[in-house]
């Protein structure tokens, strides 16, 4: 399947798999924001973008021809329901992570009075 797609040329490949391109763009952007932004809240936003990339990956996979459906045996175009359920769970996990992260950020702000990672480093080496 992959070899056939590779043979069809890069443009074709990107067009038929645009969701996956989107997934890895989101992963890249999320990772970049997490690493490059000194602001703690933006780091958490980057983490959310990273996770969203993975959600898209699963949902896109549910729709693609040639993927196998988990329950039904007959041929036919189905949208597999399982990845949607999985991602609902993963979204819940993501929400709770964000909640804990924001709670911690509030504590850090109350303690040190800053949300910038570099300023935080200076404040903490001082005390």
């Amino acid at each position, binding site marked *: 399947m992959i070899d056939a797609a590779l043979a069809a040329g890069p443009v074709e490949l990107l067009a038929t798999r645009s969701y996956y391109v989107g997934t890895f763009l989101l992963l890249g952007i999320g990772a970049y924001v997490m690493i490059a932004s000194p602001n*703690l809240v933006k780091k958490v936003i980057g983490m959310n973008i990273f*996770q969203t990339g993975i959600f898209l990956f699963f949902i896109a996979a549910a729709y*693609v021809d040639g993927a196998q459906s988990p329950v039904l045996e007959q041929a036919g175009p189905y949208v597999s329901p399982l990845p949607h359920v999985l991602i609902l769970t993963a979204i819940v996990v993501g929400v709770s992570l964000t909640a804990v992260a924001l709670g911690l950020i509030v504590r*850090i702000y109350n303690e040190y009075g800053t949300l910038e990672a570099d300023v935080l480093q200076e404040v903490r080496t001082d005390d």
Partner: protein
Amino acid sequence: MTDLPPFLVVLPLVASVVVLFAGLVRSKTGWPIAALAGLGQLGLAAVAVYRVFTAGPTSYVVGGYESFYGIELVIDGLSASAVLLVAAVSLGVLAYARTAGPRGNPFYATYLLLIGGLTGVAVTGDVFNMYVFIEISGLTAYALVASGDTGRSAVAALKYLIVGTVGASLYLLGVGYAYIGTGTLNMADLSAQLAQVGYGSTLVQTAFVFIAIGLFIKTAVFPLHTWQPEAYAGSPDSVSGLISALVSTTFAYALIRVSLSVFTPDFFATADLAQTLLLVGAVVSIVAGSLLAVSQTEIKRMLAYSSVSQFGLVLAGLAVLNQTAIVGTSVHLLSHAIMKGGLFLAAGLIATATGAREVHEYEGLSERMPYAAGAFAVLALSMVGVPPTVGFVGKWYIAFGAVQAQLWPLAAIILASTLLTLAYFARLVERMYFREPATMADRAESEATAAQPDAVVADGGRPSVGMYAAVFVAAVLAVTLGAAVVPFAEQLAPTLELLLS
């Protein structure tokens, strides 16, 4: 009683909710309920171990679905040992935490939730269910690290949260690859289907690499360990004892489980890349972790870097992938948990009584706290691998496995790792026993620095019986369990034959 597996997970989860609600009615009810649940969990885990070692593996499909569609819980020799370890260590730390704190029902509710999550990782037979349990364990671990009152613990927890989430997400991405290729999430089914897709397939190899890297982050393998030293050093003493003993251990167990049950040794035989990944992670971790540990001045950070190095050994055993090495990996995984948990608790005990949290403050400690210093030294020597301690036996099996597989450079590094471990522990033992205590003026100064809010339990400064008991039990186990390894290896043999076939 085939219903045992779900109860192992349900008991701590329900107890956690009970603790939370009991806290609304009466405060200070957390510890007794948690202790009761911990005892119950230990009993269930003991029954599970007994059943597995007498009657063989059991499995249970949640919700009464057919196997492969429902979520399956599987208990074999390896997972039963992990469950027993989680139950035993958490009970020990609970004895320590009673006076050492942190106090309050929310703390104990989170504590029990973490135990439920870790047990879940150990018993699950479904890769997505494993992700959910990994995240439950992760979330509660972040919350526990943040349970210190200082800003430092909040910053450590946030760093842990962001890095840990990336790790769990990469694991999920790997599961996504495997799922797309096969349409199943059940480990047993996935293993068969992946073999059909072909181990040479890029899809399967990518799935493994993502899962392995994700769990490397969670286990803190160098250079993906960056969250770990701060998380261990910044959390309250009882919490660092608990998470250093259990959290990374359980994620390393998850890596072993996925590697052996889902990808199988045949995959490693086909895909050199996968074995190279494990080998490189192991070697780099062993060497870099030890070197970083030597250069630390804070005791808890030193112990944290020591964990990075010890998990390198665990990975080395997994990478060698013969029966001897896997026995060594299992033994070292379990014994490391007891030794490292004990060392963190001993460090906390010493800090509570004397305020010593830095390497140089341990000078002459054997005169001030002979028993605590003795327990610390015994645990440290066991970690180095002095016979007849359990630390020696685990390393021996791993090294012997590497020799059997004729991986000579790896065997050399494993043996050298003992010397490296000695390098940072000998430094401490020498200070404790062969140096004069600091002068009175210095000591007063160190007391003053200990009074800063960083030392969470420095308030009374009187270690309790429970704190001593937890440390001593760990030290005694570190020495005596060495004798139990051979029977344990015999019991584990059927499970491993199944996993390695």
